[in-house]
């Protein structure tokens, strides 16, 4: 499958994530759109890793070129899991204090 198709797909998913962060005011939806952007990047990394493997394995059948890309995706997933736990804890605390998940209320931080 041509690599351009994967690039277009990832760009579309990433743009949907960006629009979500800009358009929605619910903090949880904003958070989910960030996860969507992370996943678009992950998909592109895996596609690129298989692209490099595709060129390398023509000359050497035993090559492991491209493994690093998939390791990187694994670490991104771990990081996303950790980040998401703390983020949800912050959202829960915010809801407890102001009884809303509207991100526009966060300008009250200045008081």
């Amino acid at each position, binding site marked *: *499958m*041509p*690599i*351009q198709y994967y690039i*277009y*797909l990832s*760009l*579309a*998913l990433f*743009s*949907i994530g*960006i*629009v*979500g962060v*800009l*358009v929605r*005011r*619910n903090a*949880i*939806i904003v*958070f*989910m*759109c960030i*996860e*969507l952007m992370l*996943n678009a990047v*992950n*998909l592109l990394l*895996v596609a690129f*890793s*298989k*692209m490099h*493997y*595709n*060129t390398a*394995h023509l000359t050497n059948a035993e090559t*492991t070129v*491209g*493994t*690093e890309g*998939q*390791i990187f*995706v*694994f*670490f991104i*997933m*771990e990081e*996303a*899991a*950790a*980040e998401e*736990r*703390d983020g*949800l*804890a912050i*959202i*829960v*605390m915010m809801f407890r204090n102001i009884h809303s*998940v509207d991100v*526009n209320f966060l300008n009250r931080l200045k008081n």
Partner: protein
Amino acid sequence: MNITQILFWFLSVLALVSALMVLLSKNPVHSVLWLIVVFFAISGHYILLNAQFLAIVNLIVYAGAIMVLFLFVIMLMNLSADTEPQKNVWMKLAGTIAGGCFLISTCNIVYNAQNVSQEIAAKTALLNQGNIGLIGNLGKVLFKDYVVPFEISSVLFLSAMVGAVVIGKKEKSNV
């Protein structure tokens, strides 16, 4: 068109449509459910690329752990379509235009690149074969070359857990 290409297009359309539905759903619970569909579609893409380990990890970590946590938090807050805060129309329009401009400009870069260079246009991602994505290869690399980052990420997990507990703890009133 063989079965692999049909699956590729099906999964791509599924991912894009459900990603749009994440945005368009008024009810946050529906958004979470659509996001789970997106993750399943992306896992399908990983399987097509023969990255089986990542496909399973994606399902377990994202669709399993993270999305359940999201659902729990939403149910805890008792959110629904009625309590959903809405931005005004102009802000929505501005956000959509900004995202659309990003999409058009980046797609244009890719399109021009493949017109300029035949080498780039001929690059393909290997589907269905290649064993770099299997757990044997990834496990060897992870525990040989990437042991230190792996252990550091476990420390990161521990600190994230401590952070979540500290943040989520109920404050004593009138301290």
